[in-house]
């Protein structure tokens, strides 16, 4: 396989506060390859967004980031703030959750799209504008020559998200990071955006990191899936393997909670309890307090290691280590 475009090794993010240190992200490793889509799945507070923001130098103030991040083989974590900034927008594009708030209301969409080209490629205003028209057309905005001078409020939510995607792709970055990029959209628009990104990915060979809590989205677009819980990776593998044979009780619960055709909505399973706060992580398995299985006595006090259960399929749970429990439970 080719070199990964973006690779994290042991990425850890901590916040120091008077009441102790909060480990928001703890030793996360993953990589995404050209043209591939990596889905990072988890509940809010699982650290999935913080992982990517910290890796690209967008961590909030007060965050302490350790570990290694490689972008196109170069160590991003060793760069100066300014160099890391130059990588953003040039090699990494971002699409955020809410298109209603992620565009500057007092600037034309054209200016917002061309801004990154002017910043990184030194384009003039005229070149930038031409490029903006081209990009708006590329993301499927009708009559881009006229729309380029419009303001964000003149677009619908779905169209705004297309503008945001055009902005993210302005310099044809190697990686596109989509943070809950379809969550705020209605289902039809969501499908259109997913289709658009998939098409562009094929055309431009972009790698995509799709951060979401929505397994429906993951099934449709991902090559590999990383499931995060309590700041740690608890399972990762190829999308088909993971859906066919979810190994972690949490992943199983997530999949069981998906609405399926033919299953009535009131029969959906939910996971009891709430995710742990980063300041109050349990000493053992982070999922233990909510775990329906609790297959091993060690769970409460000892953190399970990430072990390979099939080629390329890793899971962090003692539960898989004891087949007896597995059989008993699945019987």
């Amino acid at each position, binding site marked *: 396989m080719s070199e990964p475009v973006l690779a994290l090794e042991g990425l850890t993010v901590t916040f120091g506060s008077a009441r102790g240190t909060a480990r928001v992200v703890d030793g996360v490793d993953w990589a995404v390859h050209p043209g591939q889509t990596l889905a990072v799945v988890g509940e809010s507070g699982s650290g999935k967004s913080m992982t990517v923001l910290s890796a690209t130098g967008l961590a909030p103030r007060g965050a302490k980031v350790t570990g290694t991040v490689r972008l196109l083989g170069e160590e991003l974590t060793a760069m100066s703030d300014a160099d890391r900034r130059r990588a953003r927008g040039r090699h990494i594009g971002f699409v955020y*959750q809410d298109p209603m708030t992620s565009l500057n209301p007092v600037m034309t969409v054209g200016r917002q799209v061309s801004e990154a080209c002017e910043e990184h490629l030194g384009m003039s205003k005229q070149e930038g504008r031409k490029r903006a028209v081209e990009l708006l057309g590329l993301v499927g905005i009708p009559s881009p020559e006229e729309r380029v001078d419009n303001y964000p409020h003149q677009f619908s939510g779905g169209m705004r998200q297309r503008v945001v995607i055009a902005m993210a792709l302005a310099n044809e970055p190697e990686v596109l990071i989509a943070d809950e990029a379809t969550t705020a959209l209605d289902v039809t628009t969501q499908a259109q955006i997913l289709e658009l990104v998939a098409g562009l990915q094929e055309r431009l060979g972009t790698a995509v990191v799709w951060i979401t809590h929505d397994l429906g989205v993951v099934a449709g677009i991902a090559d590999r899936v990383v499931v995060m819980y309590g700041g740690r990776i608890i399972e990762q593998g190829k999308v088909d393997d993971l859906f066919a044979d979810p190994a972690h009780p949490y992943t199983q619960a997530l999949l069981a*909670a998906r609405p399926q055709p033919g299953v009535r909505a009131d029969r959906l399973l939910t996971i009891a309890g709430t995710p742990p706060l980063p300041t109050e992580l349990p000493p053992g398995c982070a999922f233990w307090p909510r775990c329906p299985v609790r297959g091993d006595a060690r769970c409460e006090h000892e953190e399970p290691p990430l072990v390979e259960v099939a080629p390329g399929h890793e899971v962090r749970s003692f539960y898989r280590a004891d087949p007896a429990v597995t059989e008993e439970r699945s019987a």
Partner: protein
Amino acid sequence: MSVTEPNAEHAGPAPTPHVSERGRVWAALRRNKPALAGLFILAVLVVAGALGPLLAPYGINEVDADHLFQGPSRDHPFGTDDAGRDVFSRVLVAARVSLLVGLVSVGIALLVGVTIGLVAGYYRGVVDNVLMRCMDVLFAFPVLLLAVAIVAVLGRGLVTAMVAIGVVYTPIFARVTRASVLSVREQVFVTAAVSTGASDWRIMRRHVLPNIAAPLIVQTSLSLAFAILSEAALSFLGLGIQPPQPSWGRMLYDGRGYVQDAWWMGLFPGLAIFLVVLAFNIVGDALRDVLDPRQLTKDEARRTA
């Protein structure tokens, strides 16, 4: 499909205070050092207001022709004025009337403004439009100018000063109340109360008012600051409290003629106003941080003008 909504942390309106939240407010104020200092100054003010004449070392109009324009000393910590009167005693005694004007005028503004805002926000439509346009009219006059005009017409003195300042600060309360009522009115518990056939008055009193208390508490504290400032300005112009009753504003007016020779006459009464206004402002801001963090209205920008 989703386990937890990803933006759940943004959901839910800001909490509104109930009696049970008093503890939380106190705890937050206790951790806020400037707010504590503010509360301390206000406590001193209340003591001075209550016991001022008993604590004062000299009579407020005790003229001493042998000790005119004396600088601060052990006998006269704030010096003496052009009639040989003890400035410290006068500053101390004047606290009562300052506090009184502040409380009464803000009380008037609160009562009238909240009523207007409540009715306007609750009934909306024509009533709202008429009432709020009236408030706009009052708002079109700079605060002090309107107060001066009212006093000029009704005659100078303590009572008219309180009425004038009360009128001037009424629109702010009306606006704050109306804005809060409009948002509370849309909430489920109000709709539910309406559907049970509760009377409008009952709904406003039982359901709406308690839920708009937070911005009103904040506005009251800030308005007290500016009411006291306005009273001082009116008295400075000779339109507020009348001699021989001492007032901080009037003392400054008298001291203004002697700034080069008797600076203490111009310093201490003003320092008293400043500290009291500062205290109300700091406490008001601290309350805002606790109760109503996202309130910063354009009205605020007008409050001293």
